[in-house]
């Protein structure tokens, strides 16, 4: 089993520009330290219709209401996340969809880097990589995030919402895990979904593609990526 950079096609070149958008990095950094409610706020705003802050402040009384902290780190993060999320929402529909996807990837990378210190170091965390196995044709689509640590490798695909879970993704992740096992290597396959577990489970129930051995990470469990 070996990892390899994916050859950039036209789509990848365009998408790389989205991934490099400073707004993506800023929002990912805020989300990495956010509470579940703050992450739900970001999800709602980035896929909402309204771009004025007062609507969202009203919708999240536990963050902005009369009984919420009026200052401090938590309030500051809520305000900063709201502002960044509105910036994402103000992009055109196609761009904001790409930004949301890139954001989940960046957040996943950031959280895994926090855990990777004892498993190959931060340099073992990579983006857009293929995994090659002897005698197996390489997958067309690279994995969004990989942890390339000896004996503890991981392949991760990232999705904005539960609806992004599909047969192709599940097959690719399970194939990678089984091909690794054929080579006596351990590869943990995960799908990270910036959505509620309940929605993901409903989606998965309809899937016949193998997924019992694929780890599901959702809004509720994102911090597990960082080992928390």
């Amino acid at each position, binding site marked *: 089993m070996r990892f390899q950079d994916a050859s950039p096609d036209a789509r990848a070149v365009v998408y790389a520009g989205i991934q490099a958008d400073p707004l993506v990095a800023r929002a990912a950094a805020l989300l990495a330290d956010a509470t*579940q409610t703050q992450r739900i706020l970001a*999800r709602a705003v980035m*896929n909402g*219709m*309204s771009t004025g802050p007062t609507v969202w402040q*009203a919708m999240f009384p*536990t963050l902005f209401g009369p009984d919420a902290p009026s200052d401090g780190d938590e309030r500051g993060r809520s305000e900063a996340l709201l502002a960044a999320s509105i910036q994402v929402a103000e992009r055109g529909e196609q761009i904001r969809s790409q930004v949301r996807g890139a954001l989940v990837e960046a957040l996943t990378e950031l959280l895994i880097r926090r855990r990777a210190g004892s498993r190959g170091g931060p340099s073992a965390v990579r983006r857009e990589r293929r995994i090659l196995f002897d005698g197996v044709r390489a997958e067309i689509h690279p994995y969004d995030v990989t942890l390339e640590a000896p004996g503890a490798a991981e392949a991760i695909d990232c999705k904005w919402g*539960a*609806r992004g879970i599909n047969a192709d993704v599940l097959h690719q992740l399970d194939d990678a895990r089984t091909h690794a096992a054929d080579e006596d290597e351990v590869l943990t396959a995960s799908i990270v979904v910036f959505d*509620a577990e309940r929605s993901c489970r409903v989606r998965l129930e309809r899937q016949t593609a193998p997924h019992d051995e694929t780890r599901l990470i959702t809004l509720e469990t994102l911090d597990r990526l960082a080992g928390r």
Partner: protein
Amino acid sequence: MESISTIGDAIAAARPAYDELAIFAEDVEDEWSYINDLALAWADRMDAVADARGKEPAAAGVAEAVSALVAEAAAIDDPHRAIDWLSTFPQVLLVAIGEQP
């Protein structure tokens, strides 16, 4: 919208907007089964909270939160976005009333 003084009132006030969202989302015919399964799963969760905590007083800001949430859902003009909001809507409602989704 009816006045909201309890958790049960908040959920009851939000549910019609959620049901409308599900009907709108059904315009995406390929996802009909998923949409209905998703809506049912979240409706069950909201009903369970209403059964367990329905008589508890709603905290400050909950009435305004439900009003804003219902208005946001009504503004959604794309059935694909409505599918995404079938998941988002109950999460927002539940955290507003102090529940984990």
